[in-house]
């Protein structure tokens, strides 16, 4: 009897999961495919400001610090082997391949993702989405689509910014402070970083993360139970689910992209 109950619970859990995945998939299709219009462009711009520009500060500041720490840690290890010349290479590769896409995506989920969920959730709770439907406007197109596209475009740009300031932060600590030869910092970097292999793959990663994080954020907002408790839960879920998804997908993508490079 007890075992039967558990099996039933397992089955119900699986079905619930599949159902919500299905709903999320249909949701993504319905909202992302729409005819661009002049008005849609304005709505998108607005969200670009909200999602992208407003996240710039936290992303850039974090990037500088990560680059500086990376440089400091790398130097203390490399100097033991007399290989501090390789500092630039180490900083650039760790940032481009791994840290920028992942850390920027995590910060983005915390800063912009949770705000998207809360905003859409609040619009749902105050019946704004329903009233939009009653006016005869599809909220998927009007509310969700611009946010989805803004997130999708913003995160890769933010990731690029993160890498650039991170490399600069590494330069500050490594070259200006610890005294690594400047030419070695840049030339070591240039000889080991491939534009398509490293910069390109890093960008692909961040595109995937952008899609996943924004998708989770807007879907959680759209699908939540419209009470204050529901909103706070959905916001938490956005951050938790997107963080897990980013880290898990990062492993998969890294295996596919850099697995054979050794």
């Amino acid at each position: 009897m007890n075992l039967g109950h558990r099996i039933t619970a397992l089955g119900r859990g699986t079905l619930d999961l599949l159902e919500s995945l299905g709903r999320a998939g249909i949701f993504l299709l319905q909202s992302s495919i729409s005819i661009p219009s002049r008005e849609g462009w304005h709505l998108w711009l607005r969200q670009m400001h909200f999602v992208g520009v407003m996240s710039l500060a936290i992303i850039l500041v974090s990037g500088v610090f990560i680059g500086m720490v990376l440089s400091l840690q790398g130097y203390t290890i490399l100097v033991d082997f007399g290989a501090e010349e390789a500092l630039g290479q180490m900083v650039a590769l760790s940032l481009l391949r791994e840290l920028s896409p992942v850390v920027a995506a995590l910060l983005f989920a915390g800063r912009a993702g949770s705000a998207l969920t809360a905003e859409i959730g609040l619009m749902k709770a105050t019946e704004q989405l329903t009233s939009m439907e009653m006016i005869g406007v599809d909220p998927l197109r009007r509310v969700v689509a611009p946010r989805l596209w803004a997130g999708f475009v913003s995160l890769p740009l933010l990731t690029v910014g993160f890498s650039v300031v991170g490399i600069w932060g590494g330069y500050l600590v490594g070259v200006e402070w610890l005294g690594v030869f400047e030419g070695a910092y840049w030339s070591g970097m240039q000889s080991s970083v491939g534009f398509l292999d490293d910069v390109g793959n890093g960008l692909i990663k961040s595109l995937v993360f952008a899609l996943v994080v924004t998708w989770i954020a807007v879907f959680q907002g759209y699908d939540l139970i419209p009470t204050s408790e529901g909103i706070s839960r959905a916001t938490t879920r956005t951050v938790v689910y997107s963080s897990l998804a980013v880290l898990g997908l990062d492993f998969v993508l890294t295996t596919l992209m850099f697995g054979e490079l050794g």
Partner: protein
Amino acid sequence: MKRSKMMEFGVGLFMLAGILGLVFLGLRVSGLGNGVGGETFTLYADFANIGGLKPRSKVTLAGVRVGQVANVELDQEWFEARVTLELDADLEGQLPRDTTAAILTSGLLGEQYIGLSVGGDPETLAGGDTIRDTQQALVLEELIQQFVSNMVRE
């Protein structure tokens, strides 16, 4: 209206900064500007052992960077490594025929690169030629083995 203009301006700046950042990553960080960007010509060199040489490793002449390794493949006939070099087009027809290519290491454990040193032959190398005189990579184990066997002989 005013606020929306400011916002559009901000988003425009944001996009521009992202694109500039990408350009920076391309030119300054992955070094697309030097080597691949300018005119190049190709030389080949066969090595018995290339050690840790990889595509994009630098090629220097008298310590100055003049190009990079474009490709490394195994010569199925002689079982040697055939390395393709991309060099600045300015050097085409300037390098003597007896130029040597050696695989060197920067620092004790640093990256490996190819160092060219010129000879005195009046004839010069043209695009597609092969550098005959090469010096393979230094492999630490072989070095130690040599050293030990010398000791034993003495």
